[in-house]
């Protein structure tokens, strides 16, 4: 059996074990074990990957395996990873691990919650390891559907409405994807679904012109592309903590990853032709999300709009189509995944205590819960791009990369995107100042407790990851960049 498949198998085994579990203690133990195994596995994978590369193995994808699934349509279960997928797998494992600890006291129906949670994760892992278009689509759907139930059942507020909205919009996106995947399949010769093989061929440019926007928008919906981002604020606001973490932290990355791996990689000519349209849209996302976040009063809405802005930057950088910006895009996916998960974890923990997410109803929490307060400040600083934390290196890589494109449109959009660093500072400091500093707003908050041990595990793990990525970025940015080089080479050849 292929090594990579373990990533999909562990969640499935955990599912079975959960099914047999009888009480909350067992459920938590099983979930934690599964998540820990995944975390260890991603560590091993990173080591093996870097080792292979150091040994001089320079094939595009490592750890390849193909199993025939459905011969008439040439559907294979094909797996393989490059630096970008390894980075995404590390991210997913960290978020899974911390998500489990953040839902230690999930109520009601803990068993069912974790069942769906792990099913979702197997979809995510599958998506990142597979290089077959159809399997990719299938895993994508596996990752989306459980979201509906997770929000609809364990959510808060207008949960049914939000769950429905989120699911419908993302399904709309995947409908576009299905069309484009079939289009790619037929117009690339109709005998393979394998990404690497399709990449060797040439899809006629006239066809690309139709398929590229479909693919890019299809993935863009999940990547919060303006104007298809409105599921995000409502969805995140209603979702339970761990689901918000996983959704903003990992699922939104499927969008960026897919846009990069499928849309741009397979259809470079159309990408070059139409990049300007999407660059404008993503440029709008970046600045528009940031401005929207400035006036929100619900913590989750602030963070959701902030995600629109940061994920906009991911797609923006991908569309720059040079090696620096694309590396930055992947770094930004990692960084945003980690810090937004941290944010949602902390918001969930604060909400669990104060029973409100409105910043107008909180104040002076730093004094009452110093651990959560300090962690929130760190998350905020990462988000506004403080050097030494992950946001800075990702954003700077993007900005430097984007600045290498010297025509007027790219220049203007880059400068517009750069200004987001100021607006981010405005909304982050506004929130921090309102809820953490100042006088205690509500006397009942005086008696609240600080983080518990499981919450601390979750928060500290994320902070360590953020600091590690932010202060020693060289090894991971090299790993990503080396994998992006051949892709950029293909893009350049298409020019």
């Amino acid at each position, binding site marked *: 059996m292929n090594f990579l498949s373990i990533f999909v198998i562990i969640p499935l085994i955990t599912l079975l074990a959960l099914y047999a579990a009888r009480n909350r203690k067992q459920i938590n133990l099983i979930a934690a074990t599964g998540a820990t195994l995944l975390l260890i596995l991603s560590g091993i994978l990173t080591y093996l990957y870097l080792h292979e590369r150091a040994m001089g193995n320079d094939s595009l994808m490592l750890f390849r395996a193909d199993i025939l699934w459905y011969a008439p349509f040439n559907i294979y279960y094909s797996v393989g990873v490059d630096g970008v997928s390894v980075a995404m797998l590390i991210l997913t494992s960290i978020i899974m691990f911390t998500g489990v600890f953040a839902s230690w006291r999930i109520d009601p129906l803990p068993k069912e919650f974790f069942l769906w949670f792990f099913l979702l994760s197997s979809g995510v892992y599958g998506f990142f390891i597979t290089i077959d278009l159809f399997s990719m689509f299938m895993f994508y759907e596996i990752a989306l559907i459980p979201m509906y139930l997770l929000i609809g059942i364990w959510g808060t507020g207008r949960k049914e409405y939000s769950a429905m*909205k989120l699911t*419908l*919009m993302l399904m709309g996106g995947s409908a576009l994807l299905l069309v484009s995947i079939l289009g790619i399949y037929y117009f690339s010769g109709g005998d393979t679904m394998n990404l690497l093989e399709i990449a060797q061929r040439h899809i006629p440019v006239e066809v690309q012109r139709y398929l590229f926007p479909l693919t890019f928008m299809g993935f863009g919906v999940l990547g919060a592309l*303006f*104007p298809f*981002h*409105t*599921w995000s604020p*409502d969805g995140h606001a209603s979702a339970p903590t761990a689901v918000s973490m996983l959704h903003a932290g990992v699922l939104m990355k499927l969008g960026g990853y897919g846009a990069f791996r499928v849309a741009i990689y397979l259809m470079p000519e159309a990408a070059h032709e139409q990049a300007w349209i999407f660059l404008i849209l993503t440029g709008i996302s970046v600045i*528009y999300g940031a*401005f*929207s976040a*400035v*006036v*929100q009063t619900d913590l989750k809405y602030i963070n959701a709009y902030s995600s629109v802005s940061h994920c906009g930057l991911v797609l923006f950088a991908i569309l720059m189509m*040079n*090696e*620096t910006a694309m*590396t930055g895009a992947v770094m930004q996916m990692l960084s945003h995944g980690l810090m937004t998960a941290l944010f949602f974890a902390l918001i969930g923990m604060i909400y669990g205590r104060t029973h409100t997410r409105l910043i107008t109803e909180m104040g*002076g929490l*730093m*004094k009452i819960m*110093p651990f959560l307060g300090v962690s929130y400040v760190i998350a905020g*600083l990462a988000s*506004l*791009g*403080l*050097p*030494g934390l992950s946001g*800075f*290196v990702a954003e*700077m*890589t993007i*900005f*430097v*990369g984007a*600045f*290498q494109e*010297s025509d007027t449109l790219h220049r203007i959009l*880059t*400068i517009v995107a*750069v*200004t987001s*660093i*100021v*607006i981010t*500072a*405005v909304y982050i*400091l*506004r929130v921090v*100042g309102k809820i*953490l*500093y*100042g*006088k205690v707003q509500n006397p009942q908050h005086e008696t609240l407790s600080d983080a518990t041990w499981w919450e601390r595990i979750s928060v500290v793990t994320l902070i360590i990851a953020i600091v590690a990525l932010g202060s020693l*970025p*060289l090894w991971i*940015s*090299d790993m990503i*960049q080396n994998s992006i080089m051949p892709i950029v080479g293909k893009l350049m050849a298409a020019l």
Partner: protein
Amino acid sequence: MEYTLYILILPLLSFVVLGLMDTKWKPVVAGTVGTAILTIVAALSYYTAWEYFSTANLNGTYQKIIAFNTVWVQFNEHLHIDMGILLDPISVMMLVVISTVSLMVHIYSLAYMKGERGFERYYAFLSLFSFAMLGLVVSTNIFQMYMFWEMVGLSSYLLIGFYYTKPEAVAASKKAFIVTRFADLGFLIGILILSYYTKTFDFGILTSCDANVFASFSGVTFMGASALSWAMALIFIGGAGKSAMFPLHIWLPDAMEGPTPVSALIHAATMVVAGVFLVARLFPIYITFTPEVLHGIAYVGAFTSLFAAVIAIVQTDIKRVLAFSTISQIGFMMVALGVSGYGGQAGTGYMASMFHLFTHAMFKALLFLGAGSIIHAVHSNEMTQMGGLKKFLPVTRWTFLIACLAIAGIPPFSGFFSKDEILAATMHFSPGLGVIMTFTAGLTAFYMFRLYYRIFHGKKYQTTNGHTPHESPVAMTLPLVFLGVVTIFAGFIPFGKFVSSDGGYYHIHIDPTIATISVVVALAGIGLATWLYRKENDASAAVARKFNTIYRAAYHRFYIDELYLFITKKIIFKRISSPVAWFDRHIVDGTMNGLASVTQWVSLKIKGFQSGKIQHYAFVILLGTLIIAAIVIFI
């Protein structure tokens, strides 16, 4: 000289340890550890300075030494951010300045902050600041500098907001961060432009001013100015933000909400001169390729200097007076750089600017620490609550007086020598500018002595509820005395021997005419202050009445803060963000919801088709047949 790495590692380590330990350690332990580590750092800095200035001089010119360098992140084949340590005269000088003032502040705070909630956190933040500031000055490339620049901004934010339960402190810290962030936006875009054309971040390559490196700039213009001018002007905006140049100065007076030793360290001696340091670091580029930007810097500096001096005259909060005086003095440094030539004796302004940076750091830290000692004694920042304190606080009073004389430019105190060089350079560049700066120097003498008299002289001190002010403990007076001694003698350092625009030997010579004029002007300022404020009298109130309009305008700092509030509250919140958020909820999301509603409406309408009624179906079949028949017949 790899040991210089420890100058950075030790404070970082101290920050991490103190931060993690937080209240698990007793305050006294945290304070001692922090201070002990900084003592080692200061010793290392002095040793570095000694070794550098005694060995790095090759054929009469100081060499740049890269003591350490490693790639931090690689962007593409040309561009990479390095982390390294660059030793050259200005960075070594800054190491000495920073570690000296920082050490003094560490010692002083042991007593000043005693018993404060969050004492351990305070020392952790001081360590963070020291790390960031030291890292900034030894940066080997502009991006490394930008990184430490941001971290310095963060530690400033954290320390201004140290009393985080106080709304004013929170607002001030936020304002400081956002205003400087806005300026840093300029800095960042400037870096991006510069690096795009030169393909490097490295200071060594950039400041060599090799024509080949800058060749790709040629012919690139934007709105009438060359791309390089834009880049350098934008980079200066970053410097102007940190160094509180008009109109980005608004954050500095509010930053006085932080603990007073912090004001001494960050907002007087070290961080606020980062902008000056930045311009000095890139000076060869400014002077070689973009002299017009450099001259612009001179005019901005001159205006800021005069503007802040006028405001300082009428403020009544002693820390605010000092804050505006800091802005004004940094203006002097900027002017000096702006009017300087390059190389040999032409580099008067450059040398003078660095010299003034050095002396100013010492006497301004002294003034702030003195102010802290006064506040410690009377528990107020307001001049109106003071007066006649000289007999209660002898040490503070004498050291404060020394610093006032130094900043006023009275020989033989250190400020005289550095300011005199600035005035000489400015006169040489443009007599008009020289006159303005001399006038500002006179104002400086006046407002500093107004401050001095209103604190220590004038009316008899009114003791409130039996509380008599008393001199501060030794931990506080010791730094005062130390800095006082430095302030007296620093002027005699042959500064030009160590620091000059091109690394050569600059011979300082005092121009007797300029020296006489500046001393006379300073004495006039002091005389006026003596007449108005030494004894309590009506003259000062009468003068204030006479210039009522300008007095009030200056008191309200020319309403620039209101402008800031207007921009943030009215423009960013009301005019941009709120409409954007509304648009998102109602138009964008409304469209999505609308689509859903339309779908629902249509399905409601057409669900009747599956009614299950036979007659209904028969009717539809008949209608369909008729329509098809009609089509067949008529077409």
